[in-house]
Every structure is written in C-alpha cells, then in structure tokens.
C-alpha cells in the first residue's frame, strides 16, 4: 500500500471565535484530521500577510485563517473585515505568481461552531491531498 501524502496545514485562529470553536470541537470529542497546526492569534486582523507567506515558504502545504463571522461578530468590531481584505489580496497575489490559490482558505467559525471547524479541517485536508505538496 502506498503511503498517502499527509499535508501540513497551519491554521491561524482568532482567540474569540475560531480558536474557541476549536476548543469546543476538542471537548465535544469531534474527530478531524491531525494535520492542522493551530496558532492562536488575538484577532484575525493580527495575521500579517507575511506570516501566511512565511508559513508557505517554511513548508506548509496549506494555510487556514479562522475568524469571527461578518458583519457583526468581531470582538474588535471590524477586525474580520481587515483580515478579509488581506486574504483577498493575498489570494490574488498567489494566483498571479502561479501558486494554487485554494491552498489559502478563510473561514468564519464562531465559538459555538466546533462542528464546522471539524468539517472545514476534514474538507481542507482532502483538498490539499488532491493538490499534493507545495514543493515538488
């Protein structure tokens, strides 16, 4: 049996929603693939585009950004919109440089959506498995 490619995925999760969602997924004992490396940040707008690109450069095959639902969930009022704009521009830049844009994913996950986090993680890992490793 050939060994399946196990992607490495860095997940930047905001403290108030997505990270709390991940905690809920944990205490609810939901199953999802172990490929995610979660990094908790105070707000999704704290994620400098350099972090995301640095993750790709240092060997991540995919990057997940998790924040609070738009328009009104953000703990800091408009942080999620800032993250959203940066995500769109990053996606555009990756596309222009010939890197698959679906390696970068943005999801709004609230503190009650542990199930959604598990689903997103499973789906994202499958998608990256299909794409293969970033460095070939």
């Amino acid at each position: 049996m050939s060994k399946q490619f196990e992607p490495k995925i860095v997940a930047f999760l905001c403290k108030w929603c997505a990270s709390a969602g991940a905690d809920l997924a944990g205490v609810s004992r939901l199953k999802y693939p172990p490929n995610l490396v979660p990094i908790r940040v105070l707000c999704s707008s704290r994620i400098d585009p350099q972090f995301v690109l640095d993750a790709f450069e240092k060997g991540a095959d995919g990057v997940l950004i998790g924040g609070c639902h738009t328009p009104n969930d953000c703990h800091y009022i408009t942080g999620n919109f800032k993250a959203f704009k940066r995500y769109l521009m990053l996606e555009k830049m990756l596309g222009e440089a010939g890197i698959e844009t679906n390696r970068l994913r943005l999801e709004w996950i609230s503190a009650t959506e542990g199930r959604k986090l598990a689903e997103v993680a499973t789906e994202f890992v499958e998608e990256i498995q299909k794409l293969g490793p970033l460095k070939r």
Partner: protein
Amino acid sequence: MLNKLKAAYAYSSCAGCDVAIVNLGEKLLSLSEKVEFVYWTTATDFKMEDLKRRKELDLAVVAGSIRTGEHEELVKLLRRKSKVMIALGSCACFGGIPSLANLYDKDKLLNTVYGESPSSSKGAEAPKPLTKLDRIELTIPEFRNWCDPIDYAASVNIYVPGCPPQEGTLDWFITTIDEYYQTRSTPNGLMLASEKSLCDTCPRKLPEKISINNLYRIHEIKLDEKKCFLQQGVLCHGPVTRGGCNERCIRANVTCKGCMGPIPKVKDPGAKLISVIGTILQSENEKQLGEEGLKKIIENFHDLTGSLYSYSIPLSYVEKIRRKRRL
C-alpha cells in the same frame, strides 16, 4: 602617500547608475585622486581579458542584476579578485525592475519576446547559447532562469540603493570610500540608506485617519500636491521603504515605488503593503459594503504583484516559493 585604489566597474543595467556617477561632477575629481578605474566598459577601454589578467583589485562596483550567465561569472570573478564589493543601484541590491520577469517562466519570456511579439517574424526562435554554422560556432551568454541581485552570487560589503542612487546617497558612498582609503577596514553589508521609513521624512501632511474608496492607478486621478498619496487612493511604497533619497519623487508629485529597499524590520515589502491596503481600503464603510462589495473592488486591482514589488521581487516570499517549486 597611500597607493591609489584599483577599482573595476561592471554593469548589466540601463547605465543609469553610470550617469548618476558621472553627474557628480567635481566630486568625481576628488575621487579620482584616490581611485583608479582599471575596468569600466562605459568609460574606459579595458576588456574582460585585462580584468582576468589582474591579480588583485581593491574595489569592485557592480551595477545591475544578474540576468545572464556572463553576469554571474563576472560578479564571481570580481568577488575573487577584490577586497570590497559594492552593489550600486536597486538592481544590484534587490533585483530591481528587470527581476519582475521572475514572475514568469524563462520559456514564456523568450517565447513572448522572440515568437509572439508583433515585431518578430513567424516561426522565429529564441537565440541559443551555441549556434553552429558551416565552419564557425557562435556563442552568446546563457539566459538564466532567474534574475538575481548580486548578493546571490557573491557577498557584498556596501549596498548603495536607489534607482539611480541619489546625490545624498552617492556623497555618503564617496565618504565611505574615503574612509576605506584611509583605514583599509572593510565594512560588511553596509546599507547606505536610512533605517527609518520614507514616511518619517515625507514633506506631505500626515493624515490622521485614512479611508480610500479604491486603489487607483496614477493616471486615473488628479493628484493633489500636498496630500498624502495613500489618502488619495494611490499606492505609495513610503511606509515600507527606507528613507534617505531626499524624497525626490514625492516632491515631483510621483508616488514612491520602493527603490531604496525595505526597512530592516520588513522582510517582504509587498506583503506588508497588503497589510497597509487592508487597513485603509473602505475602512469606514466595511459593514455597509459587506464581503461582496469588498470583493468586487479588490478583484479589479490591476497587476497587484507587479505594483507591490516594483524593485524587490527577489526579496518576496512568493518568489522564494516559486523557486523551491521549480527545483
């Protein structure tokens, strides 16, 4: 009296840096008392063979990036022979405008220039490094896969950024050479630019809060001569670029394009600029526009990567990723 410094000047650029040096006028005369150029293809009549025959040099000035195999060979040769290596101009320091070609494959570039462009004849092919005719063999330098700053091939002692380096920077450069002439102690990776960003010394009024409707290209709107460019919705590299250029572009009502290179704390100037635009774009109407509205605006940005890295593609993460994928 101390011996004159032997210097070589190699270039692969538009020769704008040469002009900037020649424009120094009288200051150049004082330099000529201390420095003797033994190789400078634009100004003197020495050939590559003369350079190869020399055992040792003091200074090597390189302007322009490494585009062909010959450039790489020349940079490596100069590094072996000289004590102080100087990168003159943005191309030599960060890759410069020629390195924007790194966003495309080598084959695509050659095909566009020699095959698809309106001026090339049908079925034309890109010239190869070696062409065999009946009796003779013709060689030209190989076109490399990537266009690199010179520190890719050799360690650099002094960086002189700017496109071309401004008078203030060149004065600093001459002082540095003077110091070396007196003390003979080699600097290591010295960058002749300010540690602070251009915004720090910008003559325009610092706005308190910025909210822009869209990112405009420079011809699309009429620019106010006193207002901050970012406030007017035009991409200005000021926040992430080193100062020290005397803000010549800003004073001429042209945005900063980042030719002085990124400030020390910024690793990837384009990514940092994305962060800047992310903050100021529609910052007052985010909720009214919603995700769809913002998406529509950002989708229409023209050549985002090219405008974010006008002079510094080789410093960017995206190019590092591209390179790793190719290998």
